């Protein structure tokens, strides 16, 4: 890999300073604070804290319900990512084919990304509510068959679908941009060789999409670990019986609702390490299969 070197320049430093300040104030400082709290027992109203070493981590990691939370977070991340990217890819391939009305689709498909997560959650209440939502029609066929407040898998399915719906738009934009960046000459050459649309997708477009695919995989996985709060909060509240208590949601309830700052700080550190580890694994093992040129 080529490396570039620059001489130190005061102008560059001054121009960079505001950005660095922002990163420091909104990222490094809070992270350092969380790291400190994770090793102490912090009194919410101030007034002192006690150093406890790794006790907060030991408590969290020895809690079977915490592992349940990790499990469901992983399920949520994997399922949302697969569903969102799969849907986005299909939609992008069709929008790229310039079928009738594709301009309208292209705009319409970008909109969901602009909707705030809690609003998504509330909208999906109208879909999944067992008493009044669209899914309640299932209950008229067979009473009690659909009730996410009773059946954990239905609650998980609800947040996965809502989360994926929100993510589709983001992935769609990138897939579509990548598809449109594929030189027309390649497609034309393939057509000349007699490749039909499906064959061109499989042999030509998809391999050329791998860098985008990889980028979206990393972003989607990270996002579904850290940005699922609004959906869970409005749709299930972590229930029934903790089945949708995702890691971020648990951090919120423990830290802010229950004022257990230290336990929540320890959980944030674990979540941060987990996301970093996952990203590392993706770069280490999946990026090898990605061809950039």
């Amino acid at each position, binding site marked *: 890999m080529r490396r570039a070197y620059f001489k130190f320049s005061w102008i560059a430093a001054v121009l960079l300073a505001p950005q660095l300040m922002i990163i420091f104030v909104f990222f490094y400082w809070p992270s350092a604070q969380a790291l400190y709290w994770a090793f102490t*027992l*912090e*009194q*919410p*109203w*101030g*007034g002192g*804290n*006690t150093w*406890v070493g790794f006790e907060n981590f030991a*408590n969290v990691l020895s809690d079977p319900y915490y592992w349940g939370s990790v499990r469901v977070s992983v399920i949520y991340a994997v399922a949302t990512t697969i569903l969102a990217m799969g849907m986005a890819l299909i939609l992008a391939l069709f929008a790229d084919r310039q079928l009738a009305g594709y301009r309208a689709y292209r705009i319409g498909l970008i909109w969901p990304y602009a909707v705030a997560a809690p609003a998504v959650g509330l909208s999906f209440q109208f879909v999944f*509510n*067992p*008493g*009044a939502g669209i899914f*309640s029609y299932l209950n008229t066929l067979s009473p009690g068959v659909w*009730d*996410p*407040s*009773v059946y954990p898998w239905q609650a998980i399915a609800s947040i996965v679908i809502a989360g994926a719906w929100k993510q589709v738009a983001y992935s769609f934009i990138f897939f579509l941009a990548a598809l449109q960046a594929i030189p027309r000459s390649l497609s034309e050459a393939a057509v000349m060789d007699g490749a039909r649309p499906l064959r061109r997708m499989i042999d030509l477009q998809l391999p050329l999409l791998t860098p985008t695919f990889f980028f979206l995989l990393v972003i989607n996985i990270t996002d579904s670990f850290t940005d699922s709060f609004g959906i869970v909060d409005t749709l*299930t*509240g972590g*229930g*029934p*019986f*903790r089945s949708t208590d995702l890691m971020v949601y648990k951090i919120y*309830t*423990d830290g*802010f*609702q*229950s*004022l*257990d700052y*230290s*336990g929540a700080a320890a959980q944030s550190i674990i979540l941060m390490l987990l996301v970093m580890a996952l990203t590392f694994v993706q770069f280490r093992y999946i990026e090898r299969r990605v061809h950039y040129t």
Partner: protein
Amino acid sequence: MNRTMTSVAALGLALMGSAAAAEKVKFEYWYGLTGDLGAVVLETCNRFNASQAEYEAVCVGQDGYEKAVQNTIAAFRAEKHPTLLQSFDAGTADLMLSGEFYPVTQLMADTGVTVDWSDYFPGIANYYSSSKGEFFSMPWNSSTPVYYFNKDHFAKAGLTEAPLTWEGMEAALVKLKESGQACGLAYAPSSWIDLEQFSMAHNVPVASNNNGYDGLNTELLYNTTLHVKHMENIQRWITEGVASIRTAAAGKSARDSFVEGECSVFFSSIADHNTVHKLKPSFAWDVQIIPTYEGVERHNTVVGGASLWVLSGKTPEEYKAAATYLAFLATKEEQQFLLENSGYIPVTKSTYEALKAEGFYSAEPYINRDIAMKSLTFTEPGPLTRGIRLGGMIQIRSEWQSEVEAALAGQKTMKEALDTATSRGNDILARFAKTYEGKSFP
């Protein structure tokens, strides 16, 4: 020219306005109540500001009790906190131990504002005061649980009285079912009603150390008391079809199921009395105090709702202003204003007596609302019925809630669920005790 004149005049007026406002001592009050009740809080501030010229209450809604506490803590750490905070009981153990508040008894003494503390109902006074009898916070919006029943359904089932015992309640529910009522009791698990108030009324402990009052090394005891049998009974009633689970998460809350005439009975705070009335059910209904089991001597229930805390780090002027506002809220007129616009109950004996003498409680929509007073004052509060003082109460409640829901869904037995909730709650208590090592509730 003309325009310049008007803007100069406007500027002058603005300056005069701000000068007049600057003479008033302002203090901030953050409250948790929302919706109609939030509007009532705001109205009390307007009434206070209109009633005198010295002080101005700046009242800011914080979208729920929990958020009010969270936001105040964040503001406190940045030294931008309000003088007054409306907080619910479960969120105040940390505040009590932090010492960052100004006990209202002391506040009134220091500022020379008079409040007759002995006038407060003992069930309310005990709840909000220290072991030395000093009020920590100012009782304001107070309630206690009752049950609401559909009189028409009861008449159809041949029931003439609202039962006062759980045995009687079970018999009533069976009769309701026999009369063709598909949903008897609309049940929603509530740690406040099913565990805390239930234990008060039965004089059984929720936790050791007299429910946490006597020290921080407290352990939960509710998996060893009558509470277990009670929860097993509720579960059995659901299986037998005389009760059904009605929660907002499952599509319809217990209250909506009751108001729509679908279910005959539901348990809730007396504060819902006003709401149920406003929703205008198409049937006759009434309220009754929560039942107790036969062979148990009934005790008092305790107060729920919220109280007003005065926080540390403010100026004497602000404290004087806050004290005046608190004394204003305690007057009979202001208590009555709250009662007329909500389902809450009076907090002082004199106000209650005066209202009763005026016939307040014998006219609609307030008829029988004071049954809550009967429940609250049934006996003098004893060591186990003063209230509950536990750290991490919000977590303890949510552990109870999750475990009970799991049991009701058939994932485990009720006893196993309560054992798990207790042991997890004990971990929370131990953690809390360690956070505040060497301290004790004042």
